[in-house]
């Protein structure tokens, strides 16, 4: 079992050091912009509705609801990103939201509307010379990239996900299986094992590999 310990340690040694901090930064960055955008839209509900209406994409009945609900969704996503709860899922939703924003702005541009995106409050029709479509799209592409980073590397520092044991280490070896799993859950190990890193359904793949390793070692 000495080998096992060494392997296990070397496995831990491969844990990325910088990435969890980068993920934390990406989470806070995306949360900052979403939270700011959401709160800025709360001041004047009538304006938020008008900003949505200016895109001329939704029927009037939906416009009102979206005008109220969009800033709420942005704020909720920001809170979840700060807390690090269901990080990958929340980052996927945030990324999709950015895609919707980009599509909306691009469509307004293509249809020759002259509107402000209303991203941070305000919005509505502006003079043709005051449209900022390329800048708005580039900015949202930047936030989309942040979201993508989090989707690929969801494990970050100070995340509820870790505390709740979302990333518990896969079962380590035959004799230590139980304890290893419990350790992973109990300590809220943020990184888990290198195997699980970055793969969508890390659990199954990691387990299969471990079982084979263990069998080989036993033999």
């Amino acid at each position, binding site marked *: 079992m000495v080998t096992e310990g060494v392997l296990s340690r070397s496995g831990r040694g491969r844990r990325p050091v910088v990435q969890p901090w980068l993920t934390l930064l990406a989470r806070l960055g995306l949360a900052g912009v979403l939270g700011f955008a959401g709160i800025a839209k709360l001041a004047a509900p009538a304006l938020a509705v008008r900003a949505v209406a200016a895109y001329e994409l939704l029927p009037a009945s939906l416009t009102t609801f979206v005008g109220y609900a969009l800033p709420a969704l942005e704020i909720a996503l920001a809170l979840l990103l700060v807390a690090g709860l269901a990080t990958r899922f929340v980052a996927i939703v945030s990324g999709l939201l950015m895609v919707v924003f980009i599509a909306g702005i691009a469509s307004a541009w293509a249809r020759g509307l002259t509107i402000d995106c209303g991203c941070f409050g305000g919005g509505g029709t502006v003079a043709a010379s005051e449209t900022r479509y390329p800048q708005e799209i580039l900015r949202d592409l930047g936030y989309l990239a942040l979201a993508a980073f989090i989707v690929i590397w969801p494990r970050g520092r100070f995340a509820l996900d870790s505390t709740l044991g979302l990333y518990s280490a896969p079962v380590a070896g035959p004799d230590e299986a139980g304890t290893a799993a419990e350790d992973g859950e109990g300590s809220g190990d943020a990184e888990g094992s290198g195997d699980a890193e970055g793969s969508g359904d890390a659990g199954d793949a990691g387990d299969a590999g471990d*079982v084979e390793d263990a069998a080989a070692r036993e033999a």
Partner: protein
Amino acid sequence: MGKAAKLSARERLREERSRAAARQRRNRTLLIIGSAVAVVAVVVGVIVAVQSGRDEQSAFAGQAPPATLQSDGSIVMARQGVTKPVLEVYEDFQCPACKEFETVNNGTVQRLAAEGKVKVVYKTLAFVNPEGSLRAAGAGQCAATAGKFTEFHDVAFENQPDERVALTLNDLKGFGEQAGITDPAFATCVDRQKSAAQIQAFTKQTLSDKNFRGTPTLILDGRQLNQSEIYTVDGLTKAVTNAA
């Protein structure tokens, strides 16, 4: 027990354990995603409820106080003897956000003025649709001369066209008729556009002010009101009442 049998028993146990662990992990993931969805649902539900409550529109059925044209082109609406607080309203007849403000708070402004709680000074700019806005601002002054500014102002905002479509002189004379102006001098006044130069000069001067962010701008005793004061009935009512 043979070595092979022992191994396979261990393997079976091991597979079972790892399957159970995978199941547990999947359940935990679903639970965490579920709680995130619940957080979103609660936040969205609460905010939508609050916002729809705040997004009411004012209506005033009573008689607004008289509005009189001043020499600087502004129009003062106040009850006799009311001098403060002063609410300056910077508007453009073709500005869509101004229409939004009017939809929400026109009734609030008229009610507060009628109650003698505020002196309202309308300062009309002409820049959103340079031609249409200029004609409309001039027509507003003509309506004030005819003693029907408030009525004209309400009709003009209710019937505001897309800001890319300039209001014509005929549109504006029609608004005057709807507002109940019968004096033929009104139509002549609208056609002559005598105050155009004064309005343009005032517009240029106002827009050159770095603190001016566009229409509508509301200034209450020198303080620029924020969005929630401009666009919610409760916000504007409180701001004016507290300034009294």
